């Protein structure tokens, strides 16, 4: 045990001396996480608001005078154009409107995610809808009919999900994602340095010549990677929870305005778990970290150099992200207990269920037991690699 701690201490001391690694694994996540979560939403909200308030040029062809007036009232400047589609493509105007044979056609640049043109199209659409409602109301009034004829009933949609699930919001998806991300990225620099790095720098042989059993060397290195992985994850979660909270209070007005809008994006969330829930997340994350660390050390030991180790470990990240993609569609699947045996998938599903307050004891038990077994197998693989002379002296 003593040797394990001595080796772990040495690995961590080497990391502490590397300011770049410390910054990227411990400091950066605290600042990046809130920006990553709320930055794009706030930026988009700001741009959307400015688009609503300022005047944009819209190409028009054959549009009646009354509609032109309605557009002006909606802060749009109608500009006659010869070829509306081309004018939009060339960005001479943000959108273009044609009226022909009783039909309006609206052009905009609608591909490639959120564009300003799409917002202007919405603005013009809104103006046209309002004008249309006005014309319909006038025509009905002329015939002595009330506008309530067009609305025989009202429809209201309410979120019936559990309070904990509702409160979790995006967190249900983001927490597994960030756990996977930071457990690997936080531990990777130490894992690479402690394995392939030692080989490349020629320090491994001196360590192997010391009277320490291989398993203890392996566990010492694993412990150092584990500490860095958890610290990095903790930093990210701190950034997410505290930084996110600070950002939300600083921009509360903007965020509330955004949330009031129809189809508003989900803004973060809040963890409202009981102590057992937090403990369950912690145990799941720790077991998952053990598995990932054992895999990284196996790959690192096999590699001859830093570069080679990184090229082995990067695909591991992609493999671990696949279950996250799966998680997005998990609601369309009937969750079976055996899903919780699958490596990586089980951890992601379990955390998602814990955060939403829907996890069952068998699901959690299967997840923990299977992850522990997989971690054990990965540790054996690492030990087996470490015992192979052709792997250790492969440089």
């Amino acid at each position, binding site marked *: 045990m003593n040797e394990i701690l*001595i080796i772990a201490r040495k690995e961590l001391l080497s990391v502490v*001396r590397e300011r770049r690694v410390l910054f990227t694994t411990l400091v950066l996540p605290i600042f990046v996480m809130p920006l990553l979560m709320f930055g794009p939403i706030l930026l988009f909200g700001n741009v959307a608001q400015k688009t609503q308030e300022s005047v944009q040029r819209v190409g028009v062809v054959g549009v009646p005078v009354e509609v032109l007036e309605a557009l002006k009232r909606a802060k749009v400047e109608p500009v006659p154009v010869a070829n509306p589609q081309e004018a939009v493509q060339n960005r001479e105007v943000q959108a273009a409107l044609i009226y022909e044979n009783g039909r309006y056609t609206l052009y905009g640049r609608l591909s490639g995610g959120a564009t300003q043109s799409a917002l202007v199209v919405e603005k013009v659409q809104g103006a046209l809808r309002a004008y249309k409602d006005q014309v319909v109301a006038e025509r009905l009034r002329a015939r002595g009919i009330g506008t309530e004829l067009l609305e025989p009933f009202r429809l209201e949609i309410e979120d019936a999900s559990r309070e904990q699930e509702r409160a979790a919001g995006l967190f249900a998806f983001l927490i597994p994602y960030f756990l996977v991300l930071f457990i690997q990225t936080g531990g990777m620099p130490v894992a690479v340095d402690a394995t392939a790095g030692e080989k490349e*720098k*020629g*320090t491994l*042989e001196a360590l192997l*010549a010391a009277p320490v059993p291989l398993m203890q060397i392996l566990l010492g290195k694993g412990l150092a990677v584990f500490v860095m992985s958890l610290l990095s994850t903790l930093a990210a979660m701190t950034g997410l929870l505290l930084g996110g909270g600070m950002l939300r209070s600083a921009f509360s007005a903007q965020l509330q305005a955004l949330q009031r809008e129809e189809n508003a994006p989900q803004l973060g969330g809040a963890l409202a778990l009981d102590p057992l829930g937090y403990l369950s997340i912690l145990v799941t994350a720790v077991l998952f970290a053990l598995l990932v660390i054992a895999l990284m050390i196996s790959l690192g030991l096999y590699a001859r150099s830093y570069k080679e180790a990184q090229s082995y470990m990067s695909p591991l990240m992609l493999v671990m992200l696949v279950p996250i993609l799966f998680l997005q569609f998990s609601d369309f699947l009937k969750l079976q207990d055996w899903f919780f045996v699958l490596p990586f998938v089980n951890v992601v599903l379990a955390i998602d269920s814990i955060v939403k307050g829907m996890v069952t004891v068998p699901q959690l038990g299967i997840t923990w037991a299977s992850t522990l077994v997989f971690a054990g197998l990965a540790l054996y693989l690492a030990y087996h690699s470490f015992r192979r002379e052709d792997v250790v*002296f492969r440089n």
Partner: protein
Amino acid sequence: MIEAKGLGKSYRRFQAVRGVSFEVRPGEVYGLLGPNGAGKTTTLRMLATLLRPTAGRARVAGFDVVRQSLEVRRNLGIVNGGMKVYDKLTGYEVLDFFGSFYDLWGAKLKERIAWAAELLRIERAVLSKQVKDMSSGMQQKIVIARAILHQPQVLLLDEATAGLDVFARRALLDFVRQYAGLGKTLVYSTHVMSEAEEVCDRVGFMNKGLLVYEGSLQEALALGSGNLERAFIRRLEEVA
């Protein structure tokens, strides 16, 4: 103190070391000489328990290299030319790290560090620097200090002067004789014959995995008319 009998190491069809046998007594410096690729490093790695022999057996400080590997390592120090220590740690931290595996702590550790520093002519102030800020000669001295800190009965030096400047090389050669003078057993592996002439009591010539000659330094010099390199070539011609 070192006994190797029929020691061999094969990698699939390639035989790196073929039935090597030799003995080294306490207080003796044994020169293992030969060109690059002769099998010297593989032989020493087997003695240091870093590689497992595929044939024969060896005992180091009375312990079997296969069955009692931890005991062997407790009584052995090894240095090779490519060996490095952690560049982000200071000299003290490196020695503290390796010393702790041999139960060297506190005052005892300080005493051993002072002893090794004096023997290898390492200035105390240098030990407070991070290894990456030291000259290559000083880094190699730290590598050696790490290997002798526990005052091992057996010390294996494999191309240990590689990359050293003239002062560091001189310090190392002087150290080899001094350490043998303490009754320790040393194997000095090199392809630089002049170094062997200076420090070795007995020599063994290795070529293509075989030990092709063994004798005292005087005998070997006589074989080469006063020159070890000539003796080596003559012996190779004889066995060819």
